[in-house]
C-alpha cells in the first residue's frame, strides 16, 4: 500500500476510508435537509394551489427534462463504474469513466442552459410579464428556478470534484486505489443524481395528463 493517500491524523488507510465515507454521509444528511426544506415548501404550496401547480407544471419543457434525467442516470453509471474500477486497482478504466462522467454532467448543464433560455423567451419568470393567469403559478415557477439552479450548482461542484480525481490520479495510479476520494466523490455525485430524480416528477410531470 502506498502512503501517498494517507493523511493526518489517520494511522491507517482503512480508518481514513471509514472516516471519510462517514463524513460524506453526514454531509449528505445535511444536504437532505437543505433540499428537504425546498421540497417541503413546494409540497405546502402545491397543497394550497393544486390547480395552479398543475397548469404551471404543464409549461415546463418535458423534452429537456427527460433527456437530462437520462443523461444524469448514465453519468451515475459511469461514476459507479469508475469508482469500482478505482477500488479494484483498474486505474486506466477508472480514468476513462471519470471524464465520461464529467462530460455527461456538462451536457446536463448545457441542455439546462438551453432550457432556461426557452423558459425566459416565454417569460416564465415570476414578476412583470409573467404569462400564466392562475393564482399560485408564479410560486411554482419560483420553486422551479430556485430548485433547478441550486441543483445545477451542486452538479457543477460535482464536476469539479470528478475532474480533481482525474488530475490527482494522473501520475499516481495507486493514489486512486488507496484514497477514499473516489468513493466520497461518487457518493456526492449519486446524491445529486437522486435529488434530480425526485425533482423530475414534481417539476416536469405535474399537469401532463390534464
Amino acid at each position, binding site marked *: 500500500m502506498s502512503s501517498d493517500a494517507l493523511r493526518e491524523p489517520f494511522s491507517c488507510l482503512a480508518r481514513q476510508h471509514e472516516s471519510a465515507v462517514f463524513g460524506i*454521509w453526514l454531509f449528505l444528511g445535511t444536504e437532505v*435537509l437543505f433540499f428537504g426544506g425546498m421540497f417541503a415548501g413546494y*409540497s405546502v404550496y402545491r397543497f394550497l394551489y393544486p390547480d395552479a401547480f398543475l397548469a404551471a407544471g404543464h409549461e415546463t419543457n418535458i423534452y429537456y427534462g427527460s433527456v437530462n434525467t437520462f443523461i444524469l442516470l448514465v453519468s451515475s453509471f459511469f461514476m*459507479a463504474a469508475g469508482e469500482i474500477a478505482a477500488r479494484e486497482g483498474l486505474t486506466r478504466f477508472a480514468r476513462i469513466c471519470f471524464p465520461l462522467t464529467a462530460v455527461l454532467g456538462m451536457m446536463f448543464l448545457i441542455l439546462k442552459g438551453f432550457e432556461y433560455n426557452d423558459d425566459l423567451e416565454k417569460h416564465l419568470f415570476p414578476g412583470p410579464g409573467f404569462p400564466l393567469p392562475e393564482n399560485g403559478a408564479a410560486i411554482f415557477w419560483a420553486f422551479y428556478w430556485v430548485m433547478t439552479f441550486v441543483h445545477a450548482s451542486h452538479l457543477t461542484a460535482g464536476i469539479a470534484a470528478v475532474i480533481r480525481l482525474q488530475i490527482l490520479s494522473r501520475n499516481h495510479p495507486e493514489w486512486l486505489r488507496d484514497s477514499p476520494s473516489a468513493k466520497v466523490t461518487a457518493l456526492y455525485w449519486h446524491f445529486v443524481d437522486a435529488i434530480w430524480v425526485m425533482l423530475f*416528477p414534481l417539476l416536469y410531470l405535474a399537469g401532463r395528463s390534464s
Partner: protein
Amino acid sequence: MSDEPGFSMWRLLKVPFLALVALTVLLGSTIFLSYVPMGSMNLVVSLLIAGIKAGIIVTIFMELPKSSAVQQLAAGVGVFWLMFLFLLGFADYLTR
C-alpha cells in the same frame, strides 16, 4: 487485480449496468404514466416511481447496504429529520 485488457469488467459492472437499465425503464414508465389521466393518483404514481429510482441509486450505486453500521446511521439521520419536517409541517396545514 490487473489493468490488462480483457479483464472481466462485466463481472464488476453487471449490477450497476442492470441498475441503469432498470432506472431507464422506470424513467420511460413514469413519463408514459404521467400522460394517463388518473387524477390525484398521477402524483402518487410518479412519486412512487421516483422513490424506487432513488432507492436503486442509494442501494446499488451508493452501496449503502454494504456500508458500515455507523455510515448507514449517518445516512438515515437526514431522512429521519426530513420525516419530522414533513410530518409537523403537514400536521399544521392538513388540520386547518
